[in-house]
């Protein structure tokens, strides 16, 4: 049976970013029904019942997150995380490009359910086309009465602000994102208090990923039971998987949550160039790489955690047999070193050490103490920082040393059989 896309169903429609096209294909019907026929509580109950879990990577139940916001708080916010910057992920970008109004409608439904009058979409600074599309979509939605002081003539006010980042991965961390909007250095906050209590501008705040919110209009429109019928019951719904690297047709593939990694690689045309699979990084830069014999795993939060890795935001990086895992780790370690915000010592110092040790291993200059040192340094970062960036940096080398010991051994002996990444000064 072919899967009928939900989130990407408007891809390929002419002028898909336009509100007319969106409305003609059923858009804003869920919002209209919600504000005219449903109470805020009913909308929230539907989202809770749907088991929708946050698509940013943590997989926290979305409805429950919404329910943490104190009802009587006079001022509360929604912060939409569109900062997408982790190597291997590009689904937010594709989704915003394909269907900006789907996100806007999801935002409005969240704000209606939680009683929020101001939403901020925090979009990474590089994504200029995305910010433009969203600005235009908000303006169009305002002109049709979906955004503003009395939405569809009802007692529901909501403004949506498009807020541009300026090039810092850490801003995708939810509290750093809040700091960034507030005009401070974007360094993560200590928790508690959690953003649901003290968030943006000190007020209770919901923080949701783009893809999470894009699921909401269809949950309201077609019901929680329909949503739960897609994929595993514990984490149902459509999922945007990003396939990149050595696949024949890289891109975003929408499939039910829990689709097997093998099926997804096949959907992207398989490994390119008649080569064999080397390894797969299943959940973007922060996840532990998988061996070719592990790709029958179901791509959902819980199944991947069971085998010691993560779904993350669904960034699947496929590497063919010519790629050295140490080379890949070195490059990712450079990323985390560069993006560490410097607030917590274990991450600030540890990511530098990880990268330096990996460079030695990569160059065949490592000594007998370097692998234990890399292990110790990584273990000293994980779980010892204010935010997850520390854990993200810690786990890939630890996982790879466990799963690909032979490649490390080769490097320690000074002979890697894999292709060298073309290093041109």
């Amino acid at each position, binding site marked *: 049976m072919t899967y009928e896309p939900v989130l990407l169903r408007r891809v390929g429609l002419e002028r898909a970013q336009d509100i007319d096209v969106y409305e003609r294909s059923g858009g804003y019907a869920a919002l209209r029904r919600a504000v005219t026929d449903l109470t805020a509580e009913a909308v929230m109950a539907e989202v809770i019942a749907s088991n929708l879990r946050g698509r940013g990577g943590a997989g926290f139940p979305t409805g429950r997150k919404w329910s943490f916001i104190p009802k009587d708080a006079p001022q509360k916010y929604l912060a939409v995380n569109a900062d*997408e*910057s*982790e*190597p*291997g*992920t*590009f689904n*937010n*970008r*594709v989704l915003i490009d394909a269907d900006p109004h789907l996100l806007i409608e999801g935002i409005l439904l969240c704000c209606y359910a939680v009683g929020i009058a101001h939403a901020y979409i925090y979009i*990474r*600074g*590089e*994504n*200029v*086309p995305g910010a433009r599309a969203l600005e235009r979509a908000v303006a169009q939605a305002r002109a049709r009465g979906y955004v503003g002081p009395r939405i569809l003539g009802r007692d529901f006010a909501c403004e949506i*602000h498009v*807020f*541009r*980042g*300026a*090039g*810092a*991965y850490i801003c995708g961390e939810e509290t750093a994102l809040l700091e*960034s*909007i*507030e*005009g*401070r*250095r*974007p360094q993560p906050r200590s928790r508690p208090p959690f953003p649901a209590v003290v968030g943006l*501008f000190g007020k209770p705040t919901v923080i949701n990923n783009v893809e999470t919110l894009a699921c909401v209009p269809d949950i309201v429109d077609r019901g929680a039971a329909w949503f739960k019928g897609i994929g595993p019951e514990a984490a149902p719904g459509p999922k945007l998987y*990003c*396939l*990149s*690297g*050595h696949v024949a047709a*890289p*891109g*975003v593939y929408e499939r039910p949550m829990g689709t097997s990694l093998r099926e997804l690689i096949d959907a992207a045309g398989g490994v390119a160039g008649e080569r064999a699979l080397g390894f797969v990084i299943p959940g973007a*830069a922060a996840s532990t790489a998988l061996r070719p014999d592990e790709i029958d795993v179901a791509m959902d939060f819980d199944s991947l955690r069971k085998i010691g890795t993560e779904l993350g935001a669904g*960034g699947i*990086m496929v*590497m063919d047999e010519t*790629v050295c895992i140490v080379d*890949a780790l070195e*490059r*990712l370690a450079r*990323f985390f070193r*560069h*993006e560490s*915000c410097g607030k917590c010592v274990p991450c600030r110092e540890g990511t530098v050490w990880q990268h330096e040790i990996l460079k030695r291993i990569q160059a065949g200059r490592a000594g007998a103490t370097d692998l234990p040192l890399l292990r110790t340094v990584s273990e000293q970062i994980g779980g010892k920082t204010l935010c997850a960036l520390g854990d993200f940096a810690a786990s890939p080398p630890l996982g790879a040393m466990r799963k690909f010991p032979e490649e490390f051994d080769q490097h320690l002996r000074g002979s890697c059989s894999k292709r060298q*990444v*073309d*290093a*041109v*000064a």
Partner: protein
Amino acid sequence: MTSETATKIDELAARYPTRRAALLPALWAVQEGEGWISKADLAAVADRLGLAAADAEGVASFYFLFSRVPLGHTVIDVCDSLICQQNGAERLLHDVCARLGIRPGETTADGRYTVRRQECIAACHQAPAAQVDLEYRGPITDAAQLFA
């Protein structure tokens, strides 16, 4: 700072619950208007928003896209993150730089081009990818495509 920019900053400040929250939008206004953020402009932005110059400096310096030095008329950011690296980003970077006679991070003497290495730009499906004045390009099979 021109009076036009100053007015724009006041307008931005009125949109948010605090004047400080207009800092990033204001820095963007300067970055896009002037092509970079000079010490004087940064101090003027800070002053306009009621912040200490050093405070605003600490924020601005955190972000890659806020340049504290003048940039070329056209800025080429080549992604060299894992997926692009595996798809020939170093070769591309080399070719772009060779064409211009500069190294990554430099600006041509005539001020026409700046080339920078960039971390992942969320274009892994377009690898090797780049941005020309923040517009996405890729996959790039020949450096010449970036100058077309």
